[in-house]
């Protein structure tokens, strides 16, 4: 990228052990890095914890959003690689929720040496059904999602405009903003929805050899069990673990179980290297 640093562009937050092995958390479609607030702290005692917002989400730099770069997941994967390079991180443990699971897979295919392992929370290589493949949705469902998003955003502009524009003389708005979680730009969010739900990354799975943990939730309406199993079957070096947690966001609804599953996987040797080789920034 040119000009702006990745730290600003992706609202990067680093905590935990300085110089320790990096654990990079990537949020999925719909929210931002706040999704990890109940999970990430549990790793701060052993790892350098890196949180960020995808461009167009959360507090990322909206001016960096270029529609053509983000028409598919490759653009987001490139952002992840740029983030690792700017922070000089190698052999990271990449934790991706929802669509970020596939973003992590794409990034690991591109630069395998930067990744020690992947933790894929609720992954799906394709959300739309295709012949014998079950992704859980029809193409028309994704059309409807975009309409639902539009309907829910009808009042968004009015609420957000003064805050986005900045009002130094009204500090209470800043306070309000911190309360507005997942307040994403509606137009960008719709593009992100299309990039996410119309993606087909099934052919990419066999190309990724990075050790991976697939965390599959019980009764996840976004990524059904078949989708998780499909990812596990086609990722050569993966382990599948079914969580008791229901819904699509165990990082919020079942943080303890999520943390425990991750710890078990890391303890088995997929995240024990002694710190980042090049030293963290």
């Amino acid at each position, binding site marked *: 990228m040119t000009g702006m640093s990745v730290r600003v562009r992706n609202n990067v937050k680093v905590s935990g052990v300085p110089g320790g092995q990096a654990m990079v958390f990537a949020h*999925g*479609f*719909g*929210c931002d890095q*706040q*999704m990890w*607030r*109940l999970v990430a702290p549990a790793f701060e005692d052993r790892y350098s914890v890196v949180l960020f917002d995808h461009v167009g989400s959360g507090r990322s730099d909206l001016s960096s959003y270029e529609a053509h770069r983000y028409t598919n997941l490759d653009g987001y994967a490139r952002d992840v690689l740029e983030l690792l390079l700017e922070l000089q991180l190698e052999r990271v443990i990449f934790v991706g929720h*929802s669509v970020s699971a596939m973003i992590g897979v794409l990034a690991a295919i591109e630069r395998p040496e930067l990744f020690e392992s992947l933790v894929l929370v609720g992954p799906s290589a394709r959300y739309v059904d295709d012949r014998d493949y079950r992704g859980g*949705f*029809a*193409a028309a*469902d*994704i*059309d*409807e*999602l*975009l*309409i*639902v*998003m*539009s*309907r*829910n955003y*009808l*009042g968004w502009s009015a609420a957000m405009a003064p805050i986005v524009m900045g009002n130094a003389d009204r500090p209470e708005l800043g306070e309000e903003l911190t*309360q507005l*979680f*997942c307040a994403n730009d509606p137009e960008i969010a719709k593009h992100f929805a299309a990039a996410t*739900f119309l993606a087909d990354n099934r052919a990419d799975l066999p190309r990724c050899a990075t050790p991976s943990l697939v965390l599959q939730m019980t009764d996840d*309406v*976004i990524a059904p069990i078949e989708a998780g199993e499909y990812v596990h079957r086609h990722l050569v070096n993966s382990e599948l673990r079914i969580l008791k947690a*229901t*819904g*699509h*966001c165990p990082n*919020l*609804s*079942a*943080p*303890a179980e999520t943390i425990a599953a991750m710890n078990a996987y890391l303890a088995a040797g997929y995240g024990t290297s002694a710190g980042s080789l090049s030293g963290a920034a």
Partner: protein
Amino acid sequence: MNADPMFDDAAVGYIVADQNGVIQRVNRAFLSWTGYEASELVSVRRVQDLLTAGSRIYFETYVAPLMALQVAVNDVSLTFTSPRDDHQIFTHGAAKRHGDLGSITAEVWFVLVNASGRQHFESEALRARLRLERLQRLASALATSVTAGDVASATLAEILDGVKGDHGFVATIVNDGLRVIQAQDTPPVGTGTSALLLTHFPEIAEIIHSGTAAFVESRGEGADDRLGCRIDGVAATRLAALPLVAGGRADGVLCVASVTRTGFDADERSFLLLFAELAAQSLQSAKLHDEVVKNAQEASFIARLSNALDDVVSFEARCQRLVDLVVPELADYATVENPNHELRVIAVAHRDPDLVAPLRELRTSVQVPGSQPHSLARALASREPQVLVEIPAEMYDRYDLGSRERALLGELAPRSYVGLPMFARGELVGTLMLVMAESNRRFSLADVPHLTDIANRAAVSLENARLYDHERFVAGSFQRELLGRPLPRDDRLDLRAIYQAGGELVEIGGDYFDAFFVGPDRIALAVGDVVGKGIPAATVMSQLRTALRAFALEGNGPAETLNRLDGFVTSIPGAAYSSVAYAELDLRTSELVYACAGHPPPLLITEQRDAVVLWEGRSPLLGISQPLPRSESRLRVTIGSTLLMYTDGLVEARERSLDAGITELIDVLRGEPSIDLHTLVAKMKVSDMYRDDICVLAVTAVVPEDGGLARSALPGT
């Protein structure tokens, strides 16, 4: 939980769910909207399970995380489906979490207002907004579109996206055919629009001419199978064919087809009609632009063609230039052939250099059938261009071809053909054959006017070259015949002459030389230059040469011989203004008498290579000085000296004056051990396509074997 009228009887819908969304309590309003029984829901179903798919994704990705993060969520639109008749209930509401996140007792309370009544209005507003956004995008894309291709591709992108079409194309009428400007196909179905167009062209042409859009479904009740078609083996489920009407005239069509979705609803139809109208207007101006650009390109091609052809002289070179210029820009391969020409296949060019030889072999070996079905024969007979947009595979079966020819044909793989007869002044100059092969391009009838222009322009140029070649050949033979006669032989003389024709862009000139005895010991030497070129100059030259001989043989001497020639040239058209240097050398006395009529001065070079320029005995060109007597000059030459007479071509050039030329000539002569005329000409010659003829005559007085200049016998002339 006890009955609470504020909960149970409220006009709003209430749902209480646990933190996973499992319904704990639900009120009557929600049950009556949706048609569920409480027992079907409580402790059994989750709130998200009751939603439409789109709402469910939104709930999971936005509402649920927000509930976890910030306790309450306001201003949420969710759509529920009824299990009874599948109808949808649009709600607007808020949710609030009671209890800590993760606590087993935490609950989420939903308050929902049935907004189905407003939904229609809202959906309309939303659709209108999306439509407007799309319209704005298309308008701005069209505003920056310059070519018809830009317009078509911008329109197709928005339309296919707007109605979820799988295939689309924009085509316009060109002459009597349809030409696809742009086609777009969505994978994985592949590229089927061209096939669609070809197989259904008659219907599409009808639609264009009627100016009325057709919306066709090939399946379902009341299906209209008029356009029922398959695209790459997949049945099209619906197709819209929209005539592109601008300025009251339909001259194109926009087609959109789907292979999965069925039917176009009223909204989609009005959207398609609106966009087709917008596209038609832009397309009209883009086509005008394209036409201007095309005309300019064609004019520039004709100009380039003219320059390139005129740059070379011979007929065959121009034929080669022609095919080299049209390949690959206008054809994949091309030939110029003429059944009456000795070569028959005069020039060939192929974009693939490896296929030039096979092409030549095929065209040389295949006899052009005289029968009418053969397009080349037809072109020759009708004098009209012949076009085969698509060469039918079975066409060659009609010809009597050997296995070698079939193999060559297979290698060349012609797909589309234009044969252009080239006539000039009523004469067949040749045929220009243009073929499309590997590039997959096709000729269309629209190409014919431009290609005909090219053929006509080339025909004139080729005919000129052919005439020029002919004249050059005739004049050349004439001159060779005249100048090729043997020079007189005498052992007191070393007599040499050379004639070299001018550059290839210059016609044969009128330079000449002559040497003959006018007495037993007296040799006459002449070098002259006739004005003009080609056959007329050669004719004058021969007459002048004969006259000069006659006057000289009368024993007039140089000055008087020139005086008489003055009288003669006035009676011969084209002979005036000729120049000549004439000298007589007495082999007994060694006296040289010479006179020059407007001719470069002869040189006398001693055995020691000292050169004297013979500037005396000068008078004007023949035919302009009749009243004035010509002068002559005399001097004595020594044995071993050489007299050099020449035409201006030896010393003059575009970049060299006469004086400078003579100085250079003297320098060259000084450096040469012997005076060899070929070497001399080679050293003096400028390499220039426009250089003049060169004629040089040299005579050296030598000591005869009997030791004296005395001579009794007359040499045979």
